[in-house]
């Protein structure tokens, strides 16, 4: 199970990479494995400003649909459009080419609530 130590995590199995006030967000290796073959990533919240815990998109595997929850309040400034044609990148490279959105955070103090790699590892029992 790949859980990079330089990323932050959520209980919803998302990873967060913070650079300045911009957070890049995707789903974890564990999450993609549980979902199975991902066939569609839908993000219709580009340019919208959402609160933490709001739904920013949906990831569809062959058998299931899962909502994607925004871990940090802010504006959705970028969607990884490569996923429109190649959603399977979320399976093959969840922390790299499979990233989903970038958020301009409005409240950096929220990052303190995110989990470390060790905490996330404990959560999933890896």
């Amino acid at each position, binding site marked *: 199970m790949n859980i990079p130590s330089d990323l932050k995590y959520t209980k919803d199995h998302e990873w967060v990479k913070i650079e300045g006030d911009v957070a890049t967000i995707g789903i974890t290796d564990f999450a993609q494995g549980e979902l*199975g073959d991902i066939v569609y990533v*839908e993000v219709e919240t580009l340019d919208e400003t959402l609160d933490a815990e709001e739904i920013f998109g949906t990831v569809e595997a062959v058998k299931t649909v899962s909502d994607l929850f925004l871990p940090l309040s802010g504006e959705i400034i970028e969607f990884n459009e490569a996923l429109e044609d190649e959603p399977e990148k979320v399976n093959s490279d969840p922390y790299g080419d499979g990233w989903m959105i970038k958020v301009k955070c409005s409240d950096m103090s929220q990052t303190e609530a995110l989990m470390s790699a060790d905490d996330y590892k404990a959560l999933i029992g890896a």
Partner: protein
Amino acid sequence: MKNTALTTTHKALGAKIVPFAGYNMPVQYEGVNIEHETVRKAVGMFDVSHMGEFLIEGEHALELIQKISSNDASKLTIGKAQYSCLPNDDGGIVDDLIIYKLKEEQYLLVVNAGNIEKDWNWITSKNDVGANMRDLSEDYSLLAIQGPKAIEAMQSLTSHDLSEIKFYNFVVGDFAGIDYVIISATGYTGSGGFEIYCKNSEVKQIWDKVLEAGADFGIKPIGLAARDTLRLEMGYCLYGNDIDDTTSPIEAGLGWITKFTKDFTNSEALKAEKEHGSQRKLIAFELDERGIPRHGYDIVDGNGKTIGVVTSGTMSPSLGKGIGLGYVPTVFAEVNSKINIQIRKNAVPATVIKLPFYK
């Protein structure tokens, strides 16, 4: 939760196991898309031992079957199988099933796992003719070996010429070192192949020998997730989704297994429905735009008014687009009709098509 005789085998192969119809079943091994493609292009094997098997025998066996079954079992000869359904008294369907004529006065009914108890009670309640009934579900296993290379890959395992067994025919004979199994040219994938019925004590040997014999042909074990995408690409109904206690066989497009050559449960009403036309119909549709229809999503008209419901939907691995089945009023059911599928907050345009999706 019950196990099949192969549950530990599936776990050892790395399958993801999920509860399904009361059984721990393998939903996928390697991944649904690769498993789907394996069946379409080569050969794959499914453990579908959760399915139920009833033996009906004796001099009144056919009489009972004709009462409960919509299809005409008098047309069966030994070695032939027939797809059918069990209508209920209220216009709906108790279950869909396959009926095998094993011998004179001996038939095997293969029913859905989730309906074993319901079907048993239903058939028992209709058995006022004194047919003998036995539930073999707990004793028998079922493997489906499906795909265009199934015949070639499996021929070394039997003395019977597999290419001689026609669709919906079967032989009782030797397979993979077991003397008597049912080798049936049936399946739920649309890619050809066989289903093998054997005793639980025999299934591990057969499973292993099939994987061995199929190795050169690229055989893989296939989970229930791919079974669902494969059947949906053909438009085969799934009980509990596309047909149930409230859907009639006529509106579900199962008129071809509803034969009014004899009386059966609710046949008068179904005959009238067939003559006058159904109010609604089960349609097959493809999305015109990106998106994936799912069971339970609303079907809406151009004004956003709900006109029906999706009963099955998926992203078709073969076609790369969203496909589904659902009920709409007959006026919307013509091929090429335009409908919309309500996917979250979007009404995504879709077109009614003629089955199958995958040709």
